[in-house]
Structures are given as C-alpha cells and as structure tokens.
C-alpha cells in the first residue's frame, strides 16, 4: 500500500505566538532592548539561512538516492558500527545551530533512523574542526585534545544508553 503524504500544516505555531507576544509585551512596557533583540534575531536568521538551504538540499538528496528501505538498512536498527561512525562524523562536521538540523533528522527518523544515532549526532557537535585552532589558542592543546577525546567517546555511550533507556 502506498504511504499517504501528510497534509501541509505549520508546526510550532504556539511557540511562535508565545515569542511574538513576549516581544509585544516587552515593547509595550518600553524595554529598549526589544529592537536590539529583533536585530540580533534577524542577524541569526541571515547567518543560518545558507545552512537551512544545505539542509533542504541534503534532505532531498537523501530521499532521491536512498530508498526508505536503504535508509533503514544503513541507519536503522540493523545497522552496524559504521552507522555510529557516520553519525559521529556528521555531528563533528555539521555547522550552525542544533535546530537547523531538525528537519533533516526528523525526515531520516521517519525513514527508520535509530534514535541512538540522533543522540550521537547531537552529542558530538561540541567538536568543531574549524574552531579547534581557536579553542587551542584560548585553552591550550592539552585541554582541547582531552576534551575532544572525551566528547567523542561519550557521544557513542550516550547513543547506546539512550537506546537502552528508550526501549
């Protein structure tokens, strides 16, 4: 049986409405920082727009080249250690805020990606290769190396534990 497509509906309407009301209230009570916050938010949106475009493209490419069965095979419950390594690597190389990756991960999860891999992806995001020189400059290479090592090991443990608790 062919899977029916979900009808289009906006999500997070209440979150948006709550934030909107918060801004209006702050504006009405005369908080000067509202305009600054709006400018900051606009700046953030502009900064993450390219990342969102990449996420949309990646989602489309995954759906085009990989059938749901293949995604389930590579990232699902039957997947092996390679899936954990891929997830770890993806977390390290992914840019931008965590929420920018929600649409892609939700899509992959809908096709059978296991929850442990999503947890690994999120946990390994502390390590950012382009930012490593800056981290070394601020805290030294010993700190950076040890932190990186612990983060990578703990990301895998978190993924495994999440699956253990969430079954």
């Amino acid at each position: 049986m062919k899977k029916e497509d979900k009808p289009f509906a906006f999500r997070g309407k209440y979150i948006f409405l709550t934030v909107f009301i918060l801004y209006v209230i702050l504006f009405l009570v005369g908080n000067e920082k509202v305009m600054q916050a709006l400018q900051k938010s606009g700046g953030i949106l502009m900064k993450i727009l390219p990342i969102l475009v990449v996420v949309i493209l990646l989602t489309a490419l995954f759906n085009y080249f990989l059938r749901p069965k293949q995604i389930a095979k590579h990232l699902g419950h039957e997947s092996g250690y390679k899936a954990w390594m891929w997830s770890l690597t993806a977390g390290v190389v992914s840019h931008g805020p965590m929420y920018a990756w929600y649409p892609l991960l939700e899509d992959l999860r809908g096709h059978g990606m296991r929850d442990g891999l999503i947890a690994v992806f999120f946990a390994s995001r502390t390590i950012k290769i382009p930012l490593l020189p800056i981290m070394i400059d601020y805290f030294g290479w010993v700190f950076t190396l040890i932190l990186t090592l612990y983060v990578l090991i703990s990301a895998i443990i978190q993924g495994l534990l999440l699956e253990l608790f969430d079954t």
Partner: protein
Amino acid sequence: MEQKQKKKSIQRPLFRKILMKSGLAFLSMAPLLLGVIGLVGLFQVLVTPRMLASLFRDNPLFDTLIGTLSGAAGTGNPMVSYVIGGEMLGQGVSLYAVSALILSWVTLGFIQLPAEVEVFGGRFTLYRNLLAFFFTMLIAVLTTLTVQALL
C-alpha cells in the same frame, strides 16, 4: 535493457518533486524555527557574559553545575562560549565551570527545548537532555582532572 531503464525511471521520482517536498517540509517548520530564533535574539541581548560569570563560586561541583546550566541558557556560535570561557578563566573561575559551559553551550539548550519536543517527542527529548546534562558534568570533571594531572 530499455525496459529495465524505463522501469528504473518510473520507480525514482523526479528530483525537482522531491526537492519541493523537502522545501515544503522545511516551510512547515518555519514558525517553529522563527520562534526559536526570536528567543535566541532576546536571550543574547538580555543575558550578558558578565551576568553569567558573576554566578560562579569557588566550589568545583557547584561551579560545574552552574557552568552546565549557564551553557544551556547561553546561545550563539560556539566561539562565543570560548570567549566567555577565556574571560572567566582570566577572572579566576575554575576550569570545571569553563569546560562545562563550553560543552553545554552546544549540546544543551533551554531555548530550543520546546522545538525539540515538537520534532522528536517528549520521551526522546527528556532522555537525550538528561544524558547530555549528566555527561557534560562528567566530561567537565574528567577533563579538568586529566589536564591537572598532565600539566
């Protein structure tokens, strides 16, 4: 052969169509993302690095906990957390707190919690965040102890 190719082209939908579907899926999340971005902007203006640094005492366990919580409340590029962490170290705040702040800055976020619940469900969000919270504290302590032992 020709029949095989024809069958293949029938099975695989057009990329344009799939791209449009992905675009629509993203568009449906627009209010969610805009809400989170609006909150991030508000927090960046209202919560200053100086406010965060003033929370710490000279107790490793308490500082690790406060570092984790302030990192979870903080938002923005991870580099911002390095700058705040560097300033904190300069002001005499312990490495426990700084490590915890850097870690939780990226992996935990009070602001994006409602969005995470909406997308992944309450159960997943609860387990993931509890694990991230526990491991942030653990890694902060382990990193500091290892660095102190090595240097």
